[in-house]
């Protein structure tokens, strides 16, 4: 049993085991981050997972209530909101990769604006973010084709080294 796991169990005992805590316990990896997200984003083949999502989307595998009441905790996120936001950002990048690469090349668009918002870039500075993605289009898309996590990482690095965006973004 890993250390993180023990910590979580202790925490559950102390906090009186709310349902959501128990939910989280269902996930093997109890380290910080979102359990489900970690499984999905680790070393994964982007395309395979994208397909899987689309298959389940079109095949319509609706299971009772699983799709309802989705929150950071039902998705197995620990340690609060930060990982959930990261998880949502990765999910968004994965599921909208085609739209995002188009809009990065075009230097604007609603998918790109939504991504910027998820990444904490304030609306008034998003034009700079768009210009940056257009400039780095080739590297970003190459990274994105390997995995959305890599693309988000590359974007985060680009934001962190950008003279303006680094200052204003809530990272």
């Amino acid at each position, binding site marked *: 049993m890993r250390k993180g796991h023990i910590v979580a169990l202790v925490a559950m005992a102390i906090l009186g085991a709310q349902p959501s805590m128990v939910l989280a316990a269902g996930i093997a990896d109890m380290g910080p981050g979102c359990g489900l997200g970690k499984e999905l984003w680790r070393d994964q083949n982007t395309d395979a997972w994208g397909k899987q999502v689309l298959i*389940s989307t079109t*095949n319509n595998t609706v299971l009772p209530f699983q799709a309802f009441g989705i929150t950071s905790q039902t998705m197995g996120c620990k340690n609060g909101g930060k990982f959930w936001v990261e998880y949502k950002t990765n999910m968004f990048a994965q599921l909208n990769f085609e739209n995002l690469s188009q809009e990065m090349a*075009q*230097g604007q668009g609603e998918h790109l604006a939504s991504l910027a918002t998820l990444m904490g870039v304030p609306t008034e500075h998003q034009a700079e973010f768009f210009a940056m993605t257009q*400039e780095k289009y080739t590297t970003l898309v190459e990274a994105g084709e390997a995995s959305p996590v890599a693309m988000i990482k590359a974007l985060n690095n680009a934001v962190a080294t950008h003279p303006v965006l680094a200052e204003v973004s809530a990272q």
Partner: protein
Amino acid sequence: MTIWGPFLFSGVGVTVPLFVLAVTQSASATPIPDHSYLSELIQRASQTKLAESREWHLLLHYRKNVFGGYTSEADDPQFFLSPTGRTDPQAELDGTINAFFSTEHVGSSKQPAQCAFIARYYWLKSELQIDDLKLPAQTCERFDQWIAELNADSITLIFASAFLSNPASMFGHTFLRIDQKGQTEQTRLLAYTINYAADVPADAGVWYPIKGIFGGFKGYFSTPPYYLKVQEYRDIENRDIWEYRLNFSEHQLRRLLEHAWELGSTYFDYFFLKENCSYHILSLFEYADPTLHLTDRFHAWTVPADTVRLVVAQPGLVKETMYRPSRRTVIQRKRERLSVEEHQLFVDITEQVGSTKQEAFVRLPIQRQAFLLDVTSDYLRYQSETDKSHASVYKEQNRAVLAARSALRIPSEDLKIDPFSKQPDLGHGTSRASVGAGWRNNDTFEELAIRAAYHDLLDPEIGHTQDAQVEIASVSVRHYNRADQTRVEQVTLVNMMLLSPMDSLFHGLSWKINAGMNTIRFGRCQLCSNGVLNGGIGAAKESHWLKREVVFAFAEAEADYSRAYQEDYRVGGGGTGGMLADVSDHWKIMATGSYLKYPLGEKSDDIRWFVGSRYTLMQNWAVRLEYNHRDRDNDVVFSVQAFF
């Protein structure tokens, strides 16, 4: 009303075991209920006849049944807190009040009753003025987190227009978007939606639409993010989307979400025609604002566009309407802005990305270069979705186009794209009744006709998908004066036609299918019933000589059954050519000619002509003059048509 129900994320395999785990966790010790307060509340509820109130019926989805009692439309036994709750509103009310005293986990979502049925709880709390000291309010952490995650500010009703290629989507689809606080027009993609759809297993088979009509599937609510829905309708299925921002108060919004939470863990048997996506969306509106009477307007079927019209007709309910074009619409509108030379470049680049090196391209201003590359990228993405077998080729081409585009360091202009057909609320009603009169050969007649649904190519096109005909269940009755005979002239079971104009870039086929009965003159028989089954595949082309015309041609096969034939039947094939033309905004004409030869059964052939002309008087009124010719059989009818 889609039967397909995309749901949120594919985390199914992981989340389900989690909920199972939650079940194994025993509830904390149940406090001893205050029996005197329980009976006091039940008595108070009975005195004020709460079980008979509209809101209670809305919460439990009760409908009057044929025996004069009530039955709930919900089909999940766990939705009820009394064993007889499905048919007994009073017993359910008593059972519910009782359950609120317990922390025991109930319902499919395994929560205390106060949390699982949180809308019922808050409603009863206010109606019965429940004292928190005598019946303590429990914390509902899961619900609170969900509400926090939704961060709801308002509700938008979304209509995805008809998609004929999937029988489950041929009338369109509606769902709700939960707009978030602080959301902008750019970030509305991130909002969650509330979608209701049938759970159709992957192995449902080709007859699933039939099963869907008779309640053979279970329907569930789900909350996928809006970006997934936009992708499905705009990018994959090329359907225009209309967004109706609604004007619910904060309190009404809260009620809507509370009730959605209750429904999120239950199911209803899905009836494609009536208890479908649109119907259940209306039921959420009714609980949000009980003064709205929406679901009881629908008896036999609930057509999504009708529900949109009904919502728009409620005073003050719709704040604003927005249009989101499909990818195909975007491409068509952008093409209109290209010069002949630019259009040629566009076609060249779609075939060979290297064409951007052409002199003609290089000397264009940078904005025009960007515009051309943008529409090319749109088209390549459209192709990768519609021509799946070559998707990877288009994707690669698109990458190259986008790489060239990213080298032009200017942002694309924000273009306003206009729809080809106006919003659904301006469209004519789903059903149609007509009164007409005319001549047939040397007789005169009067005619009454009624059609259940939905739209034919000559009907007023505003608010409907262009060039798409879906007629279901129509019948016309005529009285012939000279023959002194009243007869069923025509019956249509299904009559669908899709004209899909082709050009250098779009290659989709047109198709038609018709099953029904008509009246023919054949041999010695003057007025004979004739069963028809006809289907064809063809091509169409659009032009703009007058206003807008579509010419089309079909190759088709037909089987007829009639006593008029010596062998009772005939089977053959042939072709139809025709034209559909808008003369003005109100006036449309259609002309077709067909030749069919029947080598099987009664050996014969048939030449047919049809010319029809329709003039729109108002949204729901039109007049028509139609001429039908078959072998020695001429028929002219003038009719007035009302839609409702």
